[in-house]
């Protein structure tokens, strides 16, 4: 029998609170939950046969539900689904070896929520708007005197130039949206990780960590940004446990 690991918690002096909470919960496949403690941290586990760990969506959701409930009571570091260790001794050894990194990460996420933001565009509409803008900006550009207007060379160069200008405008537009968002988030002292142009339709895929008390303010900011950028589609998700803000490699 192995141990399925859900999360690493900062329990401090609240081990009794954790035990009461775990007694009221069930893990994957209805298994009982238990805590393995080392100093002020605890790892929440349940018994599992490796061969019985189903790789399906419902099991992953059950697993996430445990982390979600625990995160409402304790600062924690979520562990990736499917992580198994063979014994309590192995877990304690892992906690001991990684104690400084675990503490540092737990302090970083204490009393904070993670939120995700994805910003989608309708590429053809956005490109048409930017194309019109680009052509307005460069409408007075004339072909070189040595070329005629109908030359194949000029047509090719002109087409490439237009494409290049459109890409430049698109990148500048995305950058301006990112700047706007980060300036707004800076007001909340948010820690953010933002990727741009993830796909042709997803122009921004970001996550950020904010104090729990600022949740409502964040929702207002996101709403204001959506109203400002009508051509873009904002999706804000959360609050999440801090899945995206675990910043260490287990030794």
């Amino acid at each position, binding site marked *: 029998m192995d141990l399925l690991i859900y999360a690493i918690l900062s329990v401090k002096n609240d081990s009794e609170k954790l035990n009461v909470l775990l007694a009221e919960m069930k893990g994957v496949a209805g298994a009982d939950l238990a805590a393995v403690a080392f100093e002020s941290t605890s790892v929440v586990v349940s018994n599992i046969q490796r061969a019985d760990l189903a790789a399906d969506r419902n099991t*992953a959701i059950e697993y*996430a539900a445990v982390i979600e409930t625990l995160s409402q009571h304790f600062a924690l570091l*979520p562990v*990736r*689904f499917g*992580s198994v260790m063979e014994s309590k001794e192995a877990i304690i050894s892992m906690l001991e070896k990684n104690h400084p990194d675990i503490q540092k990460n737990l302090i970083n996420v204490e009393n904070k929520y993670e939120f995700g933001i994805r910003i989608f565009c*309708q590429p053809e509409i956005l490109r048409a708007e930017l194309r019109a803008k680009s052509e307005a900006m460069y409408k007075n550009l004339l072909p070189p005197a040595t070329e005629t207007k109908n030359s194949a060379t000029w047509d090719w160069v002109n087409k490439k130039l237009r494409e290049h200008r459109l890409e430049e405008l698109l990148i500048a537009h995305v950058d301006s949206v990112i700047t706007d968002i980060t300036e707004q988030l800076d007001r909340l002292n948010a820690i953010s990780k933002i990727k741009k142009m993830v796909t042709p339709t997803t122009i921004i895929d970001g996550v950020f960590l904010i104090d729990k008390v600022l949740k409502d303010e964040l929702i207002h900011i996101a709403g204001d940004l959506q109203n400002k950028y*009508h051509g873009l589609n904002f999706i804000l*998700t959360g609050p999440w446990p801090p899945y995206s803000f675990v910043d260490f490699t287990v030794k």
Partner: protein
Amino acid sequence: MYDNVIDQSKDITILELLDRVLNKGVILKGDIVISVADVDLVYLGVKLMLSSVETMEQLKSGNAILPINPGK
């Protein structure tokens, strides 16, 4: 129409949740057991579903799917 919006928002929430549970968090090296013949089937499924959401987004207009309109 509202039911439609709510259902889609739930789908997105589940996809975001699965993306986090399967792809983020503390990694205990060598102990991830969710794979068959070196192919992570669950994660592969999530990536396909996320692609589907983006396709859906392309087909939608304006902010019909938005769950973030404070005060409205």
